[in-house]
């Protein structure tokens, strides 16, 4: 916020050199927005880092598409169980309270709106919340979609975790996706190394800036109108709607309420009223 926008806008190449926060920091930031009681699916790749960043002591249930709720961390050395894998086909463990089920049930959980949050990677996200993350459409590319389309349209809150820019310096936030779509109007929030963006009816709204990133820099990098929603959520104090630590209850007025059924209603942040209105909790697409 303190960097001068004039300097930033003048130095196009330098903008791409500047860094916000690293993957693990970003994973920890996303983890802070996941309230206790949530059922969460973490996409393969960077989103799996979030599992390690979830605060200990909170009961957050991880769903893995290959048929498990209550997935635990990687096993100790020598205890890899080839029958117990995550969606990335890496060995994991089971936690007390876990459950196994077949694939049709697993994807019924997604489509049926039973997952509170999923976090996916992205090639592109449009300002309408369209997601492209399965296929570049490049000649010779072998497409592989896996469960991405089901997660994108099924989870109540679809978060994207990604670098803001491609390796070539192009923005992954775009007016309209040029890659084949995974889902239409499905993304509610995008966490990048430079900033956090909510998808609103009027496009992207920046809710939080990382490092020395400024709004003007983002506008130069992305080339889209970006609403400033940082006021209610200044960097360093943005967070989390949900108390962390060992407190088992959620105070009123924080935007998160655990129901009697033990499920969580995930409301991204108090400042994102437009985004919430834009995206019914059923995850329906338009």
């Amino acid at each position, binding site marked *: 916020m303190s960097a001068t926008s004039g300097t930033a806008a003048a130095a196009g190449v330098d903008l791409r050199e500047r860094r916000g926060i690293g993957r693990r920091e970003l994973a920890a930031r996303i983890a802070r927005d996941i309230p206790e009681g949530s059922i969460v699916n973490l996409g393969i790749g960077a989103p799996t880092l979030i599992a390690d960043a979830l605060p200990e002591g909170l009961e957050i249930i991880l769903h*893995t*598409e*290959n*048929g*498990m709720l209550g997935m635990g961390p990687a096993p100790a050395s*020598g*205890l*890899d*169980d*080839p*029958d*117990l*894998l995550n969606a990335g*086909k*890496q*060995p994991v463990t*089971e936690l007390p309270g876990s459950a*196994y*089920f*077949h*694939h*049709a049930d*697993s*994807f*019924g959980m*997604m*489509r049926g709106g039973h997952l509170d949050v999923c976090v996916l990677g992205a090639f592109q996200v449009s300002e309408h919340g*369209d997601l492209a993350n399965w*296929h570049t459409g490049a000649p*010779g590319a*072998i*497409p*592989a*979609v*896996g*469960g*991405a*389309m*089901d997660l994108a*349209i*099924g989870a109540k809150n679809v978060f994207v975790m990604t670098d803001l820019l491609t390796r070539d310096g192009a923005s992954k936030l775009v007016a309209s996706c040029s890659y*084949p*779509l*995974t*889902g*239409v109007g499905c993304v509610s929030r995008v966490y990048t190394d430079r900033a956090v963006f909510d998808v609103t009816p009027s496009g992207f709204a920046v809710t939080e800036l990382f490092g020395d990133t400024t709004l003007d820099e983002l506008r130069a990098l992305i080339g889209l109108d970006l609403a400033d929603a940082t006021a209610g959520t200044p960097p360093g104090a943005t967070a989390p709607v949900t108390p962390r630590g060992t407190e088992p209850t959620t105070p009123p007025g924080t935007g998160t309420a655990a129901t009697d059924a033990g499920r969580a209603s995930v409301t991204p942040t108090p400042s994102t009223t437009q985004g919430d209105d834009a995206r019914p909790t059923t995850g*329906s*697409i*338009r």
Partner: protein
Amino acid sequence: MISKVRPGLEEAVAGIEDGSTVMIGGFGRAGQPVELIDALIAQGAGDLTVVSNNAGNGDLGLAALVGSGRVRKIVCSFPRQSDSYVFDATYRAGEIELELVPQGNLAERIRAAGAGIGAFYTPTGVGTLVAEGKETRTIEGRDYILEYPIRADWALVSAFKADRWGNLVYRKTARNFGPIMAAAARTTVVQVDEVVELGALDPEAVVTPGLFVDRVVAVGERAWMRNGAFVGVSGAAGAAAGAASAPGTAARDAGTRDAGAAA
């Protein structure tokens, strides 16, 4: 007396015809019926259409089947992985047709076949390449596409234990596609670690009732199991796992080798 148990792998896969559609269970190598696949390769049927979530990892099992040139077409959700080089090369050589189906649609289409559903509307894939050419419908304000069942002539499934009626229990995430594929095929063949006495499986714990199963063959315990309990991967299998990019998957190979030798 009902007995679906076959004495060996050769008998278990006998009769698979050229041109068959064969469902193959597993998610990666978890639950992949590697011994049955090896038996299918040995049996010789070709011009196959394979329905499976992936298109093979490494060199064994499904990858070996794809590499054998016996698969004309594969229907799957996620063919491309770090170790899918056999499929990648076969596909790039134009020697195999790929029908890509989103994973949930794949699972539900298989489930629908076994459950007698004619077709169903799903929101997955709306507005994407998947929806092209498909009937769409708006129901209560939400858009759906029409998807049809996927049936098979044969299903090859791996489970943990069976009895002679074909009742099955699975182990952990190796369950994955087993129950729905077992129901969706004309003839379902299941490999298990062990065939137990009728009545030894807790009826409350049976996941696939025997009516979905036609043939059962025991292949012996995998390397990480001893007397029905998980003991971890150690010794040679552990060393093999350490040399692979994905821990545990190489151990599966080592395990199936061990089991194959014991069978």
